[in-house]
């Protein structure tokens, strides 16, 4: 039929409501791409991110480089800082554009439309994560390439495959954590916003963004056990600067990769479980909608 008001005619609402598994899965996949789209598309339209997301963090990284140089630290430490600077992009993205995103979505009225649509809400979270990953990767690559060139960082990689795997697992675990935090926002709202803000600097510190985390002793060990950024960054440093002396007791990259695998599995399952539980709580307490509408 040619009318714009008739699109996918069905015999009855019951027929329209009955979807095959394949149809439901395809919708979930499309929703992932749909939600990633504004982030990827937006990169080319709002140029201000180049200043805020690349130049300013690059200056922070540079400051640490000059401190280490002034202290005559081993040259690998410059590389540690550069790698940490690149990975900061992903952590910031998780905090600002994953964890607190649902708070903004609710303010804009998008949240209720997402829940009123037939896809699994996890698709929205995956879409946010993928869109955020693309955005942050650009920043990370720029910081890495420019800083490596400018500060003459030499990498010594023996196990490329493991390095790539650890990198991928770190991002998966980080964004899994972001999904958990995002789900918490459904119920805690502004309180969760303050929580993530409060977490930002401590996480920077105990993740060892600018120094090997094992230097923190027992705190570092704990961080490696529970924080994706800490364990991932530590493994990547060991793999990217092979042959460097690390503090005694530092787990091997292989062990750290396994820790990351567990973190990915736990965070995704936990995010899904929390989301389902909290959706019910949010529906019960009326937290999905803009109340003034």
């Amino acid at each position, binding site marked *: 039929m040619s*009318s*714009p*008001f*008739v*699109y*996918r*005619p*069905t*015999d*009855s*609402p*019951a*027929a*329209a*409501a*009955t*979807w095959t598994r394949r*149809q*439901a899965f395809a*919708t979930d996949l*499309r*929703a992932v*791409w*749909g*939600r990633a*789209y*504004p982030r990827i*598309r*937006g990169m080319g*339209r709002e140029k201000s991110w180049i200043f805020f997301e690349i130049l300013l963090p690059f200056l922070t990284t540079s400051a640490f480089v000059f401190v280490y140089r002034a202290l005559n630290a081993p040259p690998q430490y410059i590389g540690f800082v550069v790698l940490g600077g690149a990975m900061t992009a992903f952590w910031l993205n998780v905090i*600002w*554009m994953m964890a607190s995103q649902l708070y*903004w979505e*609710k*303010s*804009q*009225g*998008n949240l*209720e*439309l*997402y*829940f*009123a*649509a*037939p*896809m699994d809400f996890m698709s929205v979270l995956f879409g946010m994560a993928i*869109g955020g990953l693309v955005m942050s990767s650009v920043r990370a690559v720029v910081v890495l390439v420019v800083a490596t060139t400018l500060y003459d960082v030499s990498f010594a990689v023996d196990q490329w495959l493991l390095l790539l795997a650890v990198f991928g697992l770190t991002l998966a675990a980080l964004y899994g954590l972001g999904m958990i935090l995002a789900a918490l926002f459904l119920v805690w*709202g*502004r309180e969760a916003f303050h929580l993530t803000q409060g977490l930002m600097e401590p996480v920077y510190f105990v993740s060892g963004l600018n120094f090997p985390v094992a230097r923190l002793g027992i705190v570092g060990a704990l961080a490696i056990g529970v924080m994706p950024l800490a364990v991932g960054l530590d493994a990547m440093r060991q793999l990217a600067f092979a042959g460097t002396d690390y503090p005694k007791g530092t787990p091997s990259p292989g062990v750290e990769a396994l820790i990351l695998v567990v973190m990915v599995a736990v965070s995704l399952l936990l995010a899904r479980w929390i989301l389902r539980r909290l959706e019910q709580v949010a*529906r*019960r*307490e*009326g*937290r*999905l*909608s*803009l*109340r*003034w*509408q």
Partner: protein
Amino acid sequence: MSAAIEAPALDVRDVRRVYRSKPNDIVALAGVDLEVAPGEFFGLLGPNGAGKTTLIKILTTLLLPSSGTARVFGFDVVDDTKRIRRIMNMVAGGEQSGYGILTVRESLWMFGQFYGLGTRDAWKRVDELIDATGLQEQRDQRVATLSTGQRQKMNFARGLLNDPWIFFLDEPTLGLDVAAARSVRELVVQWKAAVPGRTILLTTHYMAEADELCDRIAIVDHGRILAIGTPAELKHRVQTESIFRLELDRLDAGAEALSRLPGVVSASVAADDGDGHERQDVVVNVVLADDAALGGVVTALGRLGSQIRSLRKSEPTLEDVFVELVGRGFAEADTADGTNRANATNGANGSKPRLAAESGQSAEAATGAEEELV
């Protein structure tokens, strides 16, 4: 209507919704019963805070009822959320959804993905709806730059993407100018007429809108349905007598002569319009026990030497119905308690409205002022 549609479009049984709040809980819905047939254009009419939006949120699976049951085409709003979401869509007045950084076309495409439209199919569907809603010139314009009316048309296009069987419209013409509101109403009517069985639940506090569009209307106040019926039935409730307004060239015998006629309850000369112009004719309001008494009045006027220049039956409005049922007018109801109830409800369910109120700006303005994060 399709023979395959057996369940009522909406079946609401004793639904209550209570918001926890201090010092007192707020009862948004106090036991609502409602049945809407497939293919009906059903209106919920009531002042702010009456419970209309709460009912819509429950039916669109965004809010759980505190007690009672509600079904959409036979699917339970608590347990069958996925199925309901596949066959419904919703548009609210003043909606600011989407991302301002995207164009109209991209924004609609994005929402199309959430309903499982294939990538190419979605672009085609989006273009069709852009044409249907008259947004051709804004097709590649960023959403952030649209006017209120254009934005609402885009919201309608979004709501029609998945070809819903039931369309929930929550104050859809709120804040629109006359032309934009008319355009939106025409769209709704065209969409509904295209396929038998399509159902619309409209909430509004615009009486004329409800009167014009709805097959049946429920008048809601304080979380209760006070009356349900067609607009004509509701108006008939408050009009047990017929009122006629007659413009005569003269009435030398006075209105009393008409009052004495059989079937005439009362007759009075209408007050001057107060427009400052001297009126040449006489306007008489005649209240009859039944329309049949009109013949006697016309005959009597001829006998009295009066010529009838115009004759019009006065119809009660839905506002009259509301006043009769509630004991106060709509505007009065809004200011007396509706706003307070709405604010109290906001405060019970999220910090944002409270913040907006504290800062002395409207919630919408507060939202608009926030930096958009995509």
